[in-house]
Structures are given as structure tokens and as C-alpha cells.
């Protein structure tokens, strides 16, 4: 046993608390939300920490208003986020579409619990993966990230804000009950170790400003309300000036730019982590808390002589096909364990261009997937 000493800089934090510290480190200064298990700790801690850095915390009347306030704050030039769970995330979908079409940077944390509806408030699940991508209607660009540990909850939250600011796109951060409530002793990176990105603001004279004219990346510079740049924000499909349009060319150009700005950023946005993938013959693809069970299962399979590997997805959408497809070509089988009926396994199957066998392992009984059950299936592949 070690001598009594305080290890400097180490803290015992829950995943939800680490999200809070990540948001603050990324420069988030506005939170509007409505409490819900298992996401409440995020609001609870921000209600104390945001005012201390001259930020704003508002408990709203519901989730619809929460995301409305977040969009308003972001348009006023402040980095903003909200946090909720499945039922609240459902309510946010309409305004989320507005944020996508008006290209308002914001981060929405969804700490997943068992669903649908009120579901299982205190149990983990991963049932909101496809909703995070397609919950709001119409073709829209969006980024979905998943965290698996306390340290992830810090660093991926920072990344979520950075991507959101860089591409002017809402970013959905998916956590789950296990990650959110697990406490781990961590040393959070200091201020100078965190890379923070801010939205590009217009530098031209106000008369020249075209608020929805993309730069060479397809991302328009963003003026904050009050900066002196007049601009119009609408949910209707709009031209470069921000006014509604029915012009076919402008409508198509708008959609192309929206999809293109994310497509051009694929290499930057798509994040994965590989464990033993180099010589893998059988692969596990997992994300969120389940990636932790999967890592242990892969280690055990290796111990038993199987060349197993794990690909942990951090970015779920846009689906990281640049990493997944080559690995599918390399492996004879891939196992996708999820705490849902198979929401990412269908994405894996979609990018499967060879005869790699895609096997699902699904658990929807409110319990966390164990390493043993993954190993059991893995060893049969």
C-alpha cells in the first residue's frame, strides 16, 4: 500500500460532472435545461459553476423551451448547451431542426436511459442512436458523438463544442446511465492543454455581409446579434442573405452546401479508437459504456488464442466508414454489441462491401452488457 499522500490534481468525478468541466473548458457560458434522470447532475453542477464564470444558467419550463433558449444564446454569440435524456430529447427535435437549418452551433447532451417514453429512468440503454441522427425531419447535417468514460466525458465534450463551432452544426453528445453515473479518479487537462475553437466571425464591412454565404469550407462566418451585422434567421430554406427562397437553384445550393460542409470535414469529425485491430481476424465494434465491456471481452478472447480486435466508435454520425470499411475487409466476422435492438449494426451492414459476417448482440433488459456475454458470442465466430 502506498504512503499517505494527496495525488495532485486528481479528482473523483462522475461522467456527468466531467461533461460539465469539459463544457466550461470549451468556453460554454450558457445552459438552459430541464432536469431529468440520468442527466440532472449536469444541470445541477452548471447551476453553481456557470454563474461563477459570469455565465448564464436557466432552468426552463420544459425541454422545448430549453433548446429554444440555447439557440437564442448561440445566435447572440455565446457558446451554449443543454442536457437531457430520451423523453426530453424527443421534445427537442423540432427546434433541433431549426438549429440545423439556421446553422446555429450548440451542443445537446443526451444521457440515454431505457425507453421508449418514460421507459426505465434509472437503467442504461443506447436506444436513441438513430433518433440522434434522424430525429428531426428533413435531410439535415448533424454530428453525433458517444462517450465511454469519465475522461472521455471531458475531452469529447470539448471536441463536441469545437466541431459545433467549426462547422456551425448542432452536435449531439450521447452518454448513457453507466458512463454518466460512474465515478473515476481522473486528472483533468489544464487550461493550456485544451484546444478550443471558436466560430469565425465576419470581418468584412457590415454592408458586404452575406450571412449564409459559405467560405471555402462551406461554413458561413457567423455574426452575433448586436455585432452590427444585420441578418435574418429563419427555419425556411433561405438564400445567402438569409431570406426565404423558392428558387430551385438556391434551394439545391443550400442543401449541397449543408451536406458538403460536413462531408469535407469527415477526416476531422470521424473519431474512432482501435485496440488490437492491426492483426484482427474478428472485430468487435462498440461505443459508449459497452466499449468498456467489449475491451475486456477482446482481451479475454486474445488470451484464449483468438485474434480479436475492438474498434470503439466515438463519432457515430457521420458514420466513420473510412475506418470501418477497411476493417470489415480485413476481418471474417464483426460483432456489434449494443444496448438496443441493433441501431449501429445496421450502419455497419450498410458500409459492409464484402462478405464479412455482421453479428448483432443486443440487450434491452435494462442491464449493462457484461464482458462475459460478449466473449461467449465472440468465441463462436
Amino acid at each position, binding site marked *: *500500500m502506498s504512503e499517505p499522500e494527496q495525488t495532485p490534481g486528481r479528482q473523483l468525478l462522475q461522467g456527468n460532472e466531467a461533461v460539465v468541466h469539459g463544457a466550461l473548458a470549451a468556453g460554454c457560458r450558457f445552459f438552459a435545461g430541464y432536469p431529468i434522470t440520468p442527466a440532472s447532475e449536469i444541470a445541477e453542477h452548471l447551476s453553481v459553476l456557470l454563474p461563477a464564470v459570469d455565465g448564464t444558467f436557466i432552468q426552463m419550463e420544459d425541454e422545448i423551451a430549453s433548446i429554444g433558449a440555447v439557440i437564442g444564446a448561440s445566435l447572440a454569440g455565446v457558446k451554449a448547451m443543454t442536457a437531457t435524456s430520451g423523453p426530453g430529447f424527443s421534445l427537442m427535435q423540432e427546434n433541433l431542426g431549426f438549429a440545423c437549418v439556421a446553422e446555429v452551433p450548440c451542443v445537446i447532451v443526451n444521457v440515454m436511459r431505457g425507453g421508449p417514453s418514460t421507459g426505465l429512468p434509472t437503467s442504461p440503454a443506447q436506444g436513441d442512436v438513430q433518433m440522434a441522427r434522424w430525429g428531426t425531419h428533413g435531410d439535415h447535417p448533424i454530428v453525433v458523438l458517444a462517450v465511454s468514460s469519465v475522461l472521455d466525458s471531458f475531452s469529447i465534450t470539448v471536441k463536441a463544442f469545437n466541431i459545433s463551432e467549426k462547422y456551425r452544426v448542432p452536435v449531439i453528445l450521447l452518454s448513457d446511465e453507466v458512463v454518466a*453515473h460512474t465515478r*473515476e*479518479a481522473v486528472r483533468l487537462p489544464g487550461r493550456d492543454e485544451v484546444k478550443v475553437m471558436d466560430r469565425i466571425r465576419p470581418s468584412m464591412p457590415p454592408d458586404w455581409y452575406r450571412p449564409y454565404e459559405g467560405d471555402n469550407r462551406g461554413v458561413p462566418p457567423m455574426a452575433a446579434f448586436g455585432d452590427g451585422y444585420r441578418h435574418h434567421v429563419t427555419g425556411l430554406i433561405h438564400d445567402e442573405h438569409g431570406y426565404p427562397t423558392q428558387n430551385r437553384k438556391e434551394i439545391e445550393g443550400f442543401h449541397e452546401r449543408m451536406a458538403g460542409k460536413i462531408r469535407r470535414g469527415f477526416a476531422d469529425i470521424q473519431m474512432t479508437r482501435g485496440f488490437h485491430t492491426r492483426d484482427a481476424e474478428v472485430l468487435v465494434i462498440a461505443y459508449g459504456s459497452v466499449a468498456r465491456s467489449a475491451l475486456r471481452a477482446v482481451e479475454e478472447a486474445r488470451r484464449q488464442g483468438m485474434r480479436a480486435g475492438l474498434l470503439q466508435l466515438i463519432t457515430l454520425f457521420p458514420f466513420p466508414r473510412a475506418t470501418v470499411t477497411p476493417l470489415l475487409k480485413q476481418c471474417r466476422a464483426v460483432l456489434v454489441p449494443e444496448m438496443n435492438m441493433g441501431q449501429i449494426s445496421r450502419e455497419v451492414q450498410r458500409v459492409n462491401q464484402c462478405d464479412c459476417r455482421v453479428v448483432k448482440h443486443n440487450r434491452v433488459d435494462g442491464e449493462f452488457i457484461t464482458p462475459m456475454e460478449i466473449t461467449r458470442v465472440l468465441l463462436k465466430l
Partner: protein
Amino acid sequence: MKQQDGWERYEIRFSGSGGQGLITAAVVFAEAVGVYDGRYVCQTQSYGPEARGGKSKAEVVVSDHPIDYPKALELDLLLAMNQAACDAYFYDLKKNGILVVDSTLVEQFPTSRVIAIPFTGIARDEIGRVLVANMVALGAIGLLSGQVNLDNLEKALLARVPKGTEEMNRDALRRGIEEAGKIDLDQLPRSVMNEDEEEYP
């Protein structure tokens, strides 16, 4: 299964009913091990929708290596603060694991490899508040597990508890350590299983 590099974990489950302070005890333990001792630790819990009275369990996994799966797989130590928890979780113990029960509330022991200490009784009669039974238990577990520096455990405890209750909590912790110190682990049967069961599984 033989434990190999990166696999050594020590797993503790604190179990009982909601309101007994089991999650708090687990958090203090995790803080002492993770923040003060500087080892890897994962602390998790599961509970029902009710705040009090329902089943409650909290777990701590300790290792000298990064921890992948954050929950307990096979318990090294089980604290059962009521009969229902003792019955429900006993089978999650390793054969050579340690069962610690609150003998004020648990009357029937599923094994003779058991350490029975009246945590609630000590808290009520000696410290004066039933409330700190969890801290008496924490002290005992701190010693019996051998996983935490006891000075650090006390420091972590005092940093967590509300102002004005430090002395009561410290007394409770120390009483638990003292009570556990009277136990000779070598005198216990080697396995939690009945010897016949072990021979003919």
C-alpha cells in the same frame, strides 16, 4: 481463472436498502483510493426509482491498471446491510471472498465464512446516531479489504461529510476499524462454499 497482468482488480459491493448511505460510503472509499492513494478506481451504483427503502447497491473496483469494465464481475468483498441484500448477492462472491454483514439486521448467514459486526447497533448505542452505521461499516471494510490507506480513508471521509458532523463520522469510522481489527481472517473457513459443495460441484 488465473489473474494476469492488467487484470488484477479488487471488487467491493456495498448493499442494503436506499437511505442507509451505501452510495456515500462507496464514494468515500473510491475517493480515498483514487484521489488520495492515487490508484485506478471505478465507483458505480444501481438503484430503483424510489429514494428510500428500495434495493440499493454501490460498487467499487480498484486496480493498479486502467479499469475497462467499470462494474463488479466477481466480488472480493460483499457488505450486506440487510437480509435481502445478503441473500441476493451472496452468490456473486468469489470462493475466497469475504462476506461482511450487519448482524443487527442480518440474522441468517448463508456461509460460515462470514464476518458479522453489528454496525447499526454500534452506531445507535455507542455513537448515538443510526445514521452513521454506514461509516462504521466503511471503517471495517477499509481494514478488512486491505485496499486503502486508513489515514487517507479518514481524510476522504472528513472532506465529504457536512460541517459539524466530522467528529461523529470520524468516531464511527474508527469504531468500525477497531471492531474489524478483532477479526482474525485466518480463523475463517477458506471458502464461502460448504466443503461438500466444493468437492462435488
